[in-house]
């Protein structure tokens, strides 16, 4: 019902000692690196927010995290290295797209398995041998009505 709005973010902003960090104070990256950074921001969770990525959030934590990502990028780290660095620090909670491992296998695989099972069932239903069921035959009343309709139609 209430949409997103990061109530917690907002509260955190009020409660936390407000350090005057601002968007403008954020490091500027070379253009091609900034594109990479933005894509990576969307993969990382603003850990105090409601399901917001650090690219979307105005919270201080999100700004700090953006700075960390930029610094590491400047230091020549790959996206994967930066992600594992952040996971080591904040836990897997920070990854909006969970890794594929044993503890998330069900999450990743279940939909595919369900789809395959469903497809198999649907296929079996459709391949059923054709038998004449009772429904195919018309009752006398229906025959009469059908004939009547067809006659009307011919006029």
């Amino acid at each position, binding site marked *: 019902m209430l*949409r997103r709005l990061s109530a917690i973010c907002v509260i955190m902003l009020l409660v936390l000692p407000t350090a005057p960090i601002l968007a403008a104070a954020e490091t500027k990256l070379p253009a091609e690196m900034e594109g990479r950074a933005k894509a990576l921001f969307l993969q990382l969770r603003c850990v105090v927010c*409601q*399901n917001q990525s650090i690219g979307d959030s105005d919270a201080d934590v999100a700004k700090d995290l953006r700075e960390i990502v930029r610094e590491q990028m400047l230091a020549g780290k790959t996206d994967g290295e930066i992600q594992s660095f952040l996971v080591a620090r904040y836990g897997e*909670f920070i990854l909006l797209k969970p890794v594929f491992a044993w503890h998330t296998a069900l999450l990743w695989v279940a939909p595919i398995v369900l789809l395959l099972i469903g497809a198999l069932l649907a296929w079996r239903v459709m391949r059923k041998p054709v038998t004449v069921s009772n429904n195919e035959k018309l009752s006398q009343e229906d025959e009469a009505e059908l004939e009547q309709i067809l006659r009307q139609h011919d006029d």
Partner: protein
Amino acid sequence: MIVELGHLALVLAFALSVVQSIVPIWGSLSGDRRLMATADTSAMGILLFVTISFAALMWSYAVSDFSVANVWQNSHSQMPFLYKLTGTWGNHEGSMLLWVFILALFAAAVSWFGTALPPSLRANVQSVQAWLLATFLLFILLTSNPFERQPVALEGQDLNPILQDIGLAIHPPMLYLGYVGFSITFAFAIAALIEGEIDSAWARWVRPWTMIAWTFLTAGIAMGSYWAYYELGWGGWWFWDPVENASFLPWLSGTALLHSALVMEKRDALKIWTVLLAILTFSLSLLGTFLVRSGVLTSVHSFASDPTRGLFILAILCAFVGGALFLFVLRSSRLEAGGLFAPVSREGALVFNNLILSAAAATVLIGTLYPIVYEALTDAKISVGAPFFNLTFGLTMIPLLIAVPFGPLLAWKRGDLLAVSQRLMFALIIAILATVLTGAFLHGGQWLAPIGVGLAVWLMVGSFAEVVQRAGFRKATVRVAMRRMIGLPRSVWATAFAHFGIGVTLLGIVSVTAFETETISQLKPNQTVTVGEFTLQHDGYVNKTEGNYSERSARISITQGGELVAVGLPSKRFFPARQMPTSEASIHTFGFSQLYLALGDVEGDGSVTLRIWWKPLILLIWLGTVVMVIAGAISLSDRRLRIGAPALRKRRERRGKPAAQTSEVMPGA
């Protein structure tokens, strides 16, 4: 006094719904018509009492009666009158009452419009509806009484500022009409299982109700999305938030249900699956209610809740879903399988639709519940967010989106894929053209965007292939074809528009995802920033205090080619009663695209952070859903679907043969 009256009315409604839970179904089991007929009276009575109760709560909100705890917690005397009224359902207790009010409305609707239903089926449906009513009324009375009194307070604690918006007037009622609308389908499914008999006539009755619920749910979700977009101040329109997913799940399975009921209505096939879908769709609605109110989620959407409520709702969920599924397992084998068909056929296409939509729903459901269950089991937290859903849901849906234009063109029983492909050649050429043009415009680089645009165009053009074909533009003169086109059954137009709407929405999504730009700038008064073709100038600040909040805005002049095209007033509001700031974005529409301005905090040096988004074609996202809603309305106005209309005839023709067939024989069909 009025408040106590509201409370009393709620108790009476509960008592009546207990009666309706037992008497009509008793009548249907023992074959006593008088017992069955009581349901009409009791359903009216329940609706009356719930209405009185709801009106009483609304009245105490309207007059800001702060001796009522619920009003005190969620209202403020200085709020605009509209928000005082809508505040009635801007909280757990009130929204629960709205939920039950709509449930009672739909229960009464079966009495009004279901006069042609076989009496025993009708009585069973009405009793099942009463089970739901009784349970939720009891829930309200025991754990969430909105009429609780308290020592009178001078001023209320205010409504959550985010909710102080016209969106609260529209979004929840629409959404609930959708959610709760599926309760009818559910009741019909349970009643059919109890009777152990089901035929295509069942599908004819169920489909309009499903369509109504689906139409409202579509409108409700879209409205919520637009509300979030303009209210939350960072320009997102879909977040894959658990609670959004909770509303999206019944939509997905409801969409599947619409399609499978079509097969059942026309061909007497897929019966068991359709009944199961009807049960699952409402179960997912209930799951949404549980997730929002139980406290298992810490979402902004969720209402403050205590564990008692959570447990109670979990019990309700288990009882209804578990009970329904148990009944299904027990009785579904009695349902006779119907018409046979080849894999390549209209039925086959609709099965494919159901397969993909179910898989998509499963993906969303598992993704939503996984982190909750995982944390409960291991105490460790993981996130399943937008990147996961975009990838998995997107990949799942693509085959379906490609297949959509084929479906309506395929013949029942056995279709000719080659012939259909030939009829879609025109749409294919246009789609490829759109893909190539987009690619050329982008100078290579991205490949997803051109394909996305192509797919959207394919859907938009291909959706009208059936209309063009059935009007016979190829063979007849334009005039004759036009006349035929106007005379086509409305359901054909509804299908075309609904599918077209998906294409429109998809185009919006692709465009915003691929071409959106974001600019963050630090502006002092009189400084300017350039965004694309626009130049934005900071003209200074405007402060004002109004009602229950104070506001600071920056005046931003937007010029395009040296000409002033708009003045933006993005602002920050502060609500002292809740100590809560909100951000009011300033949004400017150019064609289907929007320029979105959001204000940050003002600094000591008088500068302010301004976030500026250019959102190309974003309005298409919601415009597409508007088209879908219109399509739903067109479908409901179709003669064949008009509620109750076909049933009179059916009764005369009784003896179980699919009466549906008779109206099928029509010129041009």
